[in-house]
Every structure is written in C-alpha cells, then in structure tokens.
C-alpha cells in the first residue's frame, strides 16, 4: 500500500457503515500496513492463551516432581521440553511460567498509566504548587537507579506479585507523567478548551471531558511500549533471585542461579524458558512499535518511551 492509499483510506469509510464494519476495516488496515505488529499481536495472543489454558495443554503440576520421570531427561514425546533436575516437566513450567511475567507486565503498566494520567492532569491543569511538588517527586524517583528502588521494595515489603506490580509501576510512573504532562499543557492552550471555558464549562469538566479523551492515543502508545520494558525489569529482578518467591514457576526464575549448574547437562532448561521470555518481549516490542506508528508517528524514536 502506498502513502497515497493510506491517506485515502479513511475516506472509504462512509458514515452509514456500522461500527463493527469500521473496526474490521481498521483492523484489516493494521494487518496490511504493519505486518510485524500483526505478527507480534498473534504471538502475544498465543502466549496469553498458553498461560491461561496451561492446565489443558498436556501439562502436569509445574511445582511437583513426576515420580516415573527421569531427572534431566531430554525432550521427548512425554516431556516436550524435557525435565529438570527435580524431575519436573519443563513444558509445564514454561506454560505456567508465563503467568507471573504477563500479569506483572500488564498490571504494572495499568497502574503506571492510571497514576501517570491522574498526576499529569493534576500537574498540567492545576499548575502552581501541585506542579512543583509533582516535578520534585519525579526528579527524586528518577535520580535513584530503578534497580535500587526495586531491590528496596522487595526487601522491605515482600516478594508477592502485588508488590512487584507496584514497585515496577513506581519506577515507570515518573516517565509517564513527564510525557503526559507536556501533552496536557499543550492541549490546555488550544482554542477548543478556551471555547469550552467561554461557554461556562467547569474545570473538572474540561479536564475529564475535553483533555482526557485527547490524551487517549498517547496513553495507548505509551502503554504498549512500556509493557515489554516492565516485563524485562521484573524478569531481571527475579533472575537475580530477588523478585518472585523462589519456586514460583516463572521464565526468569528458571534461568536463575539455582538452575545454572544444570544447564551444561540439560540445554533444554536454558533454551526454552529463555526463548519464551525473549519471544514475549520481542512480540510486545513489535506490536508497540506498530501501535505508535499508527497512532502517533511523531513519537518515533523520541527516546522518551
């Protein structure tokens, strides 16, 4: 599809067509113009399906050893990805192991976006002392390396999924606020906001009915680009043995120091969990890039997100 076609495409959508038809057309356009993003989306869906329906995909309990299996057994028809040193099925561990990583990736980004939007609206719209306080807080959080915040949260509180979601969100929120705040300030000075004010709309109404909807594309872009980063940040911490509780099936956990002595004997213990994690991050990155290209090409390579 050429650039001219892309420009002309929205004109094809006559208003009498239904919402579903339009959504379908937009979806088709996404697949045609962003093949890598579409491939990423398919992989993401497969990974989510794999970890949600893990119980039905020829798996056993990922935490308990199988009595009749050998330890460190190579991949076979019985154990697609082999077994580990405790005679646990690696295929099951890989499927179940996606759950914490995906939950933390999505959860942390949801919290980041919610907190980022609220605080950016407060800073950009209320201005004054609120803006100053929020800017100070951003600087304080950004100045300390993220890994130190994460270590402090997990050692001082606990290593549950909720704590990790919060800790990862904590380190990403300042970046989101900075990004959204600039946009709020820009929107605030556009004529339509002035017009709304002239006809007597209240502050909160302008904030939520006029400025918030215009932030939506930026929030979607930021969210889809932050998910892989959040996943990698949690994975790194868990790999060090300071993230999720030991024993939880998780991709990063299975790559960690406790399994390292066995990788020489059993490549499948190293390759499959790592490939799953890499594939997930890669798919989210490709999808996120395409979303950004479609919704807001100006952000390309801005380095902000």
């Amino acid at each position, binding site marked *: 599809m050429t650039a001219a076609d892309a420009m002309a495409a929205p004109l094809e959508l006559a208003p009498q067509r239904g919402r579903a038809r339009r959504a379908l057309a937009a979806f088709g356009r996404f697949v045609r113009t962003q093949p*890598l993003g579409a491939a990423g989306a398919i992989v993401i869906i497969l990974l989510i399906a794999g970890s949600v329906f893990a119980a039905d995909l020829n798996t056993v309990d990922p935490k308990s050893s199988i009595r009749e299996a050998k330890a460190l057994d190579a991949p076979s028809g019985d154990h697609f990805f082999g077994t580990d040193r405790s005679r646990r099925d690696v295929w099951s561990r890989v499927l179940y192991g996606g759950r914490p990583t995906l939950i933390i990736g999505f959860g942390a980004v949801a919290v980041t976006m919610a907190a980022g939007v609220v605080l950016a609206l407060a800073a950009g719209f209320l201005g004054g002392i609120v803006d100053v306080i929020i800017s*100070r807080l951003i*600087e*304080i959080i*950004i*100045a*300390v*390396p*993220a*890994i*130190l915040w994460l*270590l*402090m949260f997990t*050692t*001082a509180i606990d290593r549950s999924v909720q704590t990790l979601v919060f800790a990862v969100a904590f380190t990403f929120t300042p970046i989101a606020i900075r990004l959204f705040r600039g946009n709020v300030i820009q929107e605030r000075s556009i004529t339509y906001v002035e017009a709304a004010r002239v006809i007597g709309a209240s502050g909160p109404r302008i904030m939520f009915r006029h400025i918030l909807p215009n932030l939506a594309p930026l929030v979607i872009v930021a969210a889809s680009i932050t998910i*892989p980063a959040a996943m*990698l940040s949690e*994975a*790194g911490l868990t*790999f*060090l043995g*300071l993230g999720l509780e030991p024993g939880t099936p998780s991709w*990063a956990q299975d*790559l960690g*120091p406790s399994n*390292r002595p066995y*990788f*020489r004997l059993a*490549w499948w213990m*190293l*390759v499959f969990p*790592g490939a799953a*994690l*890499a594939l997930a*991050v*890669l798919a989210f*990155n*490709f999808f996120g*890039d395409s979303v950004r290209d479609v919704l807001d090409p100006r952000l*390309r*390579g*801005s*380095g902000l997100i």
Partner: protein
Amino acid sequence: MWAYFIRRLLLVPVTLFIITVIVFIFMRAVPGDAADVRCGAAGNFDQQCFDVVREELGLNENKFGQYLKWIGDVILRGDFGYSLSQRAHINEEMGKRMWNTVQVGLLSMLFTLAIGIPVGAISAVRAGRLSDYVLRFLAVMGLSVPNFWIATMVIIFPAVWWGVRIAPDWVGWEEPLTHLQILAVAAAVISLAGGGTFARIVRSSMLEVLRSDQVRTARAKGLREFAVVARHVFRPSMIPLFTLVGLQFSLLLGGSVIIESIFNIPGIGLWVLQAVGERDFMIIQAVVVVFAGWFLLITLLIDIAYAWVDPRIRY
C-alpha cells in the same frame, strides 16, 4: 536563563537530602538487620550474639541519631563510614569497585556506539528497502532479548561444545589479555541492548535531518549523495546521542547488577547485590547518594549544553 540553572543547581542538594531520608527509612523497614545475618551465618542464634553485634555496629542507638551522625559525616567530610558486614571503609571500597564497573561501562559504551551508529545510519540512508527492514528487525531483537539469558548462553554453550571458557575470572590488569577478554565479553553482551536502542534513535534522527531544507539545498547544488550524508546529515543528527551517552552512566548500575553477578565482576553492581543479602544498608545508602548525585548533575549539564549549543532554547 542563568538564574534558572543556578536555582536548579541549588536544588540538587535538597533533592539528594530528601532521597537520603527516604532510603534511610526504607532500609530500616527491612526485616532483619546485619546482626541477624552475621549471627545467623555463624550458626549462633543466642540473643547475646545479636546484642553484642548490634552494639558493636551502633545499631542500638536511636535511629534519628544514627541518621544525623551518618548525614553529618557525609556532608562535612564526604565520609560514607564503614560497611556493616566487612567493616571496610566504604569510600575506599567504592573507589575500587567503581573503577571496575566503569571499565566495563566505558567499553560497552564504545561497543554500543560502534553498533548503534552504523546500523542506524545505514538503516536511515536505505529507508524502506530490505536492508533497512533487516537492520531494524535486528535492532529490536537486540533490545528485546534479555541480557541475562544471552550472557548465560555465552558462558554455557562454548563450554559444552568446545570446552572453551569464554568468560575467565576477573584478574585485573596484572594479566592484560585475560582482563581484556572478560571486559570484551561483558561489554559485548551489554551493548546488544544499547546498540539496538541507539540504532533506532540514530535512524529516526537522521531521517528527520534527511527531510530538512538544508539537505535539499545540498543536493540541489549537486553534491554527491555520500558527501550530503557525511557532511550535512551525519553531524547534526548525532545531537540526541549526547543525552543518551550522558545518561548511560546512570543506567549503568541497572545493567551492571545483572551482568556483574553473572560474570562475577567485583564492581558496584555485585557489591549492591551482596549488600542487600547482608542487610548492609551503609553500602546501599552510599551507592544511592553517589548515583543520584551524578544523575542530577549530569542532567543539569546536558540542559546547559543544549541551551549553549542551541540559542533558541529558553528556560
């Protein structure tokens, strides 16, 4: 404008001070302290052991008093005190370890630039062609694949297949070749992600310059395409890299914790990791102050540099 920068410079100590308070509270909220770790490691679970060690380390004093003493030493003498587990002088130890981390960091920065700039430049010049797609794909691969996975595979597979030890122990400059080898391996693993990020930024920055009027003028006056790119596109499009290179030192710690723990490099990252395990919050506090201080100063310097280079920027 200078008033703005002076105000920001004066805010640096204030921000740092608030950070120390937050970190101090955090570290005191951690369950277990250095005495628990030391007595536990010695297999001595008597209350007496804990009491003696706590007394020795000064952990029984009033918390507020401990903080005041610590911050006083830091501000007045630049002295971070002694670590709780080894009783080593933190300033001295930090100097040694910082040098190790910086060696890896500098080399990985070199590699990152050596990968990022050519890949990004070729990708931009050949935008929309097959080579552009391949390079962009590789760049995203580089920044997506977890570095701890790559590092583990780099250690394991050559050892299994050929019996080769890719990453030797950290020996220091007494054995220059071995030392260079471990530096190069660690830096190469780190620079995959950095190179991918830099390549993307170089590409978009160069594309922007390629579309500008001055480039059209250069082409119109009949310059060869190579001369246009080398003289008129390349230099202006490198400006965003200054920020990145400067900030990379702050990001260094995040990567170094993982890389140093895998390759067993005695740098700041490994130190922090051990300090967390031993509840040695004196070390954590010192590292936080140094890295946060550096970050605040470097971002200020970058902003000044931008204002100096580009007079249109007003604060």
